[in-house]
């Protein structure tokens, strides 16, 4: 874990209540599904935000404005800097053999961003995941084209039917031919994914929890699993399907 004053390269709105911020990066190795923890002026605790994408020189994050911290964050301007801890969390292991030939990647709302980096990494390893994204409405939709530019098939569900299929991600996907799945989004969606996907299919779920530290020191984010207590910030945020106690 490092502490960096990352430069803000850009910070722009990309959908309703949704912003993309590009930060300078020093090349530290990252994994999809990991997150950074951001110190905002005037707020005591840091804000955990998933790494959406990265390269040698930049990190991209996408955040929804849901409270005072993210509302303040949207007013940060390019050229300024921001204090971050990174990389945090276990992230997805794209070398896991259980992923197989036909993984499905399912993201909902604020859970979509980490799925982009995951897909890019999966594609880099020669895999072609099916992507299913869920949003409340087309106004809150983002990055569909970006996913398609990776050469992937993208199915979209919107709750109000304003784009793609009306309904939830689970209304779009079928587990008929998939070998594994990855999912990140609201807890209701995670549960629905677990019920929908055939028992034998390997799955990786990304969880959110209110955090004190984000690096394993405070036990603020613990979660009971079949293998004992795990810290969402350290042994998570990605948990394997079979260990999760719903």
């Amino acid at each position, binding site marked *: 874990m490092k*502490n960096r004053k990352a430069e803000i390269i850009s910070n722009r709105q990309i959908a309703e209540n949704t912003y993309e911020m590009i930060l300078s990066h020093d090349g530290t190795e990252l994994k999809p599904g990991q997150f950074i923890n951001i110190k905002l002026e005037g*707020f*005591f*605790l840091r804000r955990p935000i998933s790494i959406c994408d990265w390269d040698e020189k930049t990190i991209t994050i996408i955040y929804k404005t849901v409270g005072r911290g993210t509302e303040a964050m949207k007013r940060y301007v390019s050229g300024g800097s921001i204090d971050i801890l990174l990389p945090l969390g276990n992230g997805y292991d794209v070398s896991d053999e259980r992923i197989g030939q036909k993984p499905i990647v399912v993201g909902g709302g604020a859970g979509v961003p980490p799925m982009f980096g995951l897909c890019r990494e999966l594609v880099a390893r020669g895999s072609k995941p099916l992507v299913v994204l869920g949003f409340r409405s087309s106004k809150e939709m983002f990055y569909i084209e970006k996913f398609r530019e990776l050469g992937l098939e993208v199915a979209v569900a919107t709750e109000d039917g304003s784009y793609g299929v009306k309904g939830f991600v689970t209304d779009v996907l079928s587990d008929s031919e998939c070998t594994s799945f990855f999912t990140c989004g609201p807890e209701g969606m995670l549960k629905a994914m677990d019920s929908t996907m055939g028992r034998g299919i390997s799955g990786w779920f990304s969880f959110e929890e*209110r955090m*004190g*530290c984000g690096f394993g*020191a405070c*036990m603020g*984010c613990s979660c009971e699993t079949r293998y004992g207590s795990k810290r969402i910030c350290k042994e998570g945020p990605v948990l394997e399907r079979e260990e999760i106690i719903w």
Partner: protein
Amino acid sequence: MVGSDRTNMKVELCGITLDNPIIPASGTFGFGREFAELYDINILGTFSFKGTTGKNRFGNPTPRIAECTEGMINSVGLENPGVDGVINEELPEISKMFNKSVMANVSGFSLEEYVEVAGRLALQKQVGWIELNISCPNVHRGGMAFGTDPKEAARVTGAVKKALEAQSSDGGNKPLIVKLSPNVTDISEIAVACEIAGADGLTLINTVQGMRIDLKTGRPVIANKIGGFSGPAILPIALGMVYRTYEKVKIPIVGCGGVSCPEDVLEMMMAGATGVQVGAANLVNPWICQEIIEALPSQMKKYGIENLRDIIGGAH
């Protein structure tokens, strides 16, 4: 550790000399591992590890954390590996990365649990002090914390002290520091009761009761509703309690609550603290203790302090 320009940061806490007064507070430093990856934790005076109970505990339901203006609320509920886990797994790990005495923070929900856990930890070689956290609810007394009633505080202190003394010949009679809750009418009264019952030192203060409500859900943020409030916001409360208690007791006080910079350390010591714990600040800036230790000598110079121990209680 002697800083630059002949500043001396050494202090003595219950017979053990600390290179400096800085002590990460229990529950905010785990068992040191996460921090040892970031800096050499041997620069610390010592550290207090996560509150340990008889059995391993998952603790309270989540959310356990809420944010406040210049502070936070936690309701971790003493998640810990239990005294066996600490002795068999954590202490061996600690010995690899830390070559000083460590402070063992002990919790319990009954007098017997305190006695057992404190006794067993005190027998561990690397344990330098037992820090008895008496803010826990007493299951035998309707959930009222041991630390809110002078009689109960004295009872648990006395029982643990007796158990420690009984293991003198095995080297298990480690100094007993009792950590007090600020959620009382008169903390100095509890402090005096603990001193009389045999405490060798006191830590003041544990977290202050507090809560936040999530306007979006209309419910308390924390699953347990009310939790423990700490961070820079509570510094004035801690300073006042250390100051008042210093006038009533002869045993050393470890100051704790809201410390986040070297100036806070100096204030805490002038109020009466011998050692100074840093809690919530570690969670936001994991290098904070290192930064404070490095900055202390220049702050001492600024205020004309040569020996840090000379300022203990200086504001009285």
